[in-house]
């Protein structure tokens, strides 16, 4: 006991600091292990009970904190709704042996040991046929016998060891991406093997052409080369031909056109020379050329896949609602039924319990509750809604059960219209990438014209040399280095940034980031944590013998079962409450005021101070304004019959990295401003330490959009950081948009960047890296163009044989790659400096 409550101990399971005055520790094999919360304790106990303790020995990253232990205490399975057959048909497929299979996204996987733990734990359950979990993508497939075990039991088993399973819908974009990258890997592998073989043969052939070689052996070696090169041309290089053909059909030239042309020409000419038994062959150049190009493609594809996988996370909650069947004499009810949301239609009645998400737009028929519309309006405070008032899909019912008449679902709902607004905004987005494409198109057209002119000239003067000289021109001027110049640098930079939790979803981001000169923050949840936290407790003078811990336990027990922001903050500070909570009877929530309940034989009141005084029969105290508490906090009173106990203060707080990030952005010469949808005056107070000069509060989504447009019209390039669904339109309109990792799925999909770590200091780092990247890209492109300018006249004049052209081309590509890799080492140095600078700023805070 004495050791387990000592300060600065870290949780055995998640590694976070154990809160003081808490004791959830667990005796495992005679050793007392500190635990930070009942959730972690329950998970660790399950792991040890199942003999899987090796997990703790082998994991290479700490596990995620579990916090709530509700999944272990609840009598009913929280995943029970997944057993509804209408829901399952979108997620489950049947295998040949009448087994069922499902794909899951498993949250909280941090290292390879996690996959081992899950596989071992599930493997012990009866009825599980096969488990395959991919730790990198956090995805797994489970195959089971439906007669022995149900899906909800499997999901609960995963939850019990501290992971969050969420089923993946059939039509999610996952599997085609995997297939594509596998195919590309096969093509690359074939090209690589063939390149080595033809390279070996080519050495013999070159040696032969210098020292003399019998025609018999030369022909044999050439035929062998044909054997290796043919699959490269017809299999590995296929994507170039397909893309070239598509681009010709669409009358828009891409790099693949000259690539396909060069491969076709070189292959057919070499093949002709081999069959005729004379002339020159350049099989080695063809394979090398294809291999390097495929390598670039493969790197690009991998980045895209990785980002896609990190974003697509399956369905957390089964899309069900509780439908209520009303009889003639309203409001008497028949049995309630869980139904999938997609079967609901206007006019149906549904019940939404406290803490549930309202699944569709509608009118309240019965009940009064606090509804949080943060997802739609960005307003953090819940609104009081009563019978006759409208509610919107995607909002959260905070306090009491509501009976709702369904108004609009799916396409017609408020949520969908916000999505549509976002799609419209996406159309007028400045597309730098498209501009680059058009320029490349002109470049390639010019290249083909030059090659054509060279071919005609030599055909008229020296027809026997025309083909090889044209080929040299095509290979030498091949935009290989040029086409590698940008993706190579972008690949290195985005890998670097991903390691910092800065996940790039669109390729144009790095190019545009370098040009950014204005950063716009959205207050809710970006600069602040977005949740209320308990700031302090002021115990009344009359009850100074009661400990702060006791006050919190009482308050948390009273709020038990509520999802109100204050209740959540209390549960948090009480280590999720359940372990130390005291039984409360006659618990009653009064919307907009507070909660009352009996603990033991005494009546307790918690809520708005005036209401609490009123209920507890205490006289009004004059002059007890909000000035008593810390700045901009929400005051909540606790009293028992006739005695005022304490005042508890809650407030939203700045993210710890916000100040450092904003100062670094200013150092980079950027303007920083704030456009908030939050109408509360508290917003302005909380962000005061940041010293932002340009703040606009209480903005509607349209006004935010207009503000960003206005900046853009004044020639600014805008980076927008947001998180709510109401931010989606403005995220789309900004030149670069960043959604925070905790943001709604919708805004994550529509943002250019997802900041998974939530560390705002990644923003200045990303901008610095982008500037570096742009410099490297410029160097690469200038090199590629300079090389082409020198090589083209030489090749056109017939001084460069195709083999020299191929070596020059490969060397030039290699140089470009090496230059791009330089970015990694340089940026690490730069970021290292930035980070230490950042921590200094943090200390001064």
């Amino acid at each position, binding site marked *: 006991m004495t050791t387990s409550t000592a300060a600065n101990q870290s949780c055995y399971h998640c590694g976070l600091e154990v809160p003081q005055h808490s004791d959830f520790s667990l005796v495992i094999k005679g050793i007392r292990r500190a635990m930070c919360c009942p959730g972690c304790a329950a998970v660790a106990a399950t792991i040890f009970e199942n003999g899987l303790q090796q997990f703790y020995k082998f994991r290479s990253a700490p596990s995620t904190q579990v916090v709530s232990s509700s999944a272990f205490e609840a009598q009913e399975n929280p995943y029970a709704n997944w057993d509804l057959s209408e829901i399952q048909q979108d997620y489950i497929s049947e295998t040949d042996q009448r087994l069922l299979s499902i794909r899951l996204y498993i949250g909280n996987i941090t290292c390879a*040991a996690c996959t081992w733990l899950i596989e071992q734990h599930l493997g012990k359950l009866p009825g599980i046929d096969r488990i395959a979990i991919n730790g990198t*993508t956090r995805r797994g497939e489970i195959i089971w016998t439906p007669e022995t075990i149900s899906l909800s039991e499997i999901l609960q088993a995963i939850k019990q060891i501290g992971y969050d399973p969420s089923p993946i819908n059939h039509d999610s974009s996952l599997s085609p991406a995997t297939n594509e990258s596998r195919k590309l890997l096969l093509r690359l592998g074939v090209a690589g*093997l063939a390149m080595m073989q033809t390279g070996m043969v080519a050495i013999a052939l070159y040696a032969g052409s210098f020292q003399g070689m019998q025609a018999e052996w030369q022909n044999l070696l050439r035929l062998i080369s044909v054997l290796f090169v043919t699959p490269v041309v017809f299999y590995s290089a296929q994507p170039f031909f397909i893309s070239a053909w598509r681009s010709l059909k669409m009358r828009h030239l891409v790099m693949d056109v000259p690539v396909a042309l060069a491969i076709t020409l070189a292959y057919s000419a070499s093949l002709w020379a081999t069959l005729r038994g004379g002339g020159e062959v350049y099989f080695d150049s063809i394979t090398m050329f294809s291999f390097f190009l495929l390598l670039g493609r493969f790197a690009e594809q991998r980045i895209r896949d990785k980002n896609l996988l990190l974003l697509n996370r399956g369905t957390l909650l089964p899309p069900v609602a509780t439908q209520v069947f009303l009889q003639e004499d309203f409001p008497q009810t028949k049995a309630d039924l869980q139904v999938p949301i997609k079967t609901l239609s206007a006019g149906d009645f549904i019940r939404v319990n406290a803490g549930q998400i309202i699944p569709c737009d509608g009118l309240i028929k019965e009940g009064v509750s606090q509804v949080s519309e943060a997802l739609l309006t960005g307003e953090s405070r819940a609104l009081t809604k009563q019978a006759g008032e409208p509610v919107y899909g995607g909002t959260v019912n905070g306090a009491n059960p509501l009976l709702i008449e369904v108004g609009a679902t799916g396409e017609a709902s408020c949520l969908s219209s916000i999505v549509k607004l976002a799609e419209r905004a996406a159309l007028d987005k400045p597309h730098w990438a498209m501009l680059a494409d058009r320029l490349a198109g002109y470049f390639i057209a010019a290249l083909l014209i030059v090659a054509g002119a060279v071919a005609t000239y030599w055909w008229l003067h020296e027809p026997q040399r025309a083909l090889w000289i044209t080929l040299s021109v095509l290979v030498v001027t091949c935009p290989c280095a040029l086409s590698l110049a940008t993706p190579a640098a972008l690949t290195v930079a985005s890998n670097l940034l991903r390691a910092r939790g800065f996940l790039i979803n669109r390729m144009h981001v790095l190019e545009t980031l370098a040009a950014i000169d204005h950063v716009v923050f959205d207050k809710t949840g970006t600069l602040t944590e977005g949740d209320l936290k308990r700031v302090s407790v002021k115990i009344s003078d009359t009850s100074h013998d009661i400990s702060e811990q006791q006050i919190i336990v009482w308050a948390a027990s009273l709020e038990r079962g509520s999802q109100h922001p204050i209740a959540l903050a209390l549960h948090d500070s009480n280590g999720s409450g359940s372990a130390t909570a005291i039984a409360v009877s006659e618990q009653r929530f009064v919307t907009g005021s507070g909660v009352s309940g009996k603990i033991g034989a005494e009546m307790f009141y918690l809520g708005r101070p005036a209401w609490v005084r009123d209920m507890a029969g205490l006289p009004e105290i004059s002059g007890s304004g909000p000035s008593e508490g810390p700045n901009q906090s929400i005051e909540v009173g606790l009293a028992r019959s006739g005695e005022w106990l304490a005042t508890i203060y809650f407030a939203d707080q700045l993210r710890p990295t916000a100040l450092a990030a904003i100062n670094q952005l200013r150092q980079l010469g950027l303007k920083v401003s704030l456009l908030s949808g939050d109408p509360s005056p508290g917003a302005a107070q909380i962000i005061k330490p940041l010293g932002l000069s340009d703040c606009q509060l209480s903005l509607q989504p349209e006004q935010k959009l207009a503000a960003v447009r206005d900046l853009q019209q004044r020639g600014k390039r805008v980076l927008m950081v947001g998180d709510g669904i109401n931010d989606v339109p403005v995220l789309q309109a900004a030149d670069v948009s960043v959604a925070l990792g905790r943001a709604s799925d919708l805004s994550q999909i529509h943002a250019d960047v997802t900041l998974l770590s939530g560390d705002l200091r990644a923003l200045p780092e990303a901008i610095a890296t982008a500037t570096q990247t742009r410099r490297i890209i410029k160097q690469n492109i200038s090199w590629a163009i300079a090389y082409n300018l020198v090589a083209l006249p030489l090749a056109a004049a017939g001084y460069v044989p195709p083999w020299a052209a191929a070596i020059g081309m490969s060397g030039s590509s290699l140089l470009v790659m090496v230059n791009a890799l330089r970015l990694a080492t340089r940026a690490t140095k730069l970021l290292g400096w930035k980070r230490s600078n950042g921590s200094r700023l943090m200390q001064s805070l």
Partner: protein
Amino acid sequence: MQSLYLLIPISLIFIAVAIRIFFWAVNSGQYDDLDSEGERILFDQEDSLDDLINEQKDDLDKPL
């Protein structure tokens, strides 16, 4: 030099086998997750080691 007629076909067979194995490996998903598979072997080995130690302990506990 005549040996080339034998050696080259042999090398061709090797390449064909290599490509075959490569296709099999990629298509059976062995390149899908390069990070966790490498560590998996460690757990299994440790598992049997633990068993071994326990068995030895059991042996020691037994009366001679």
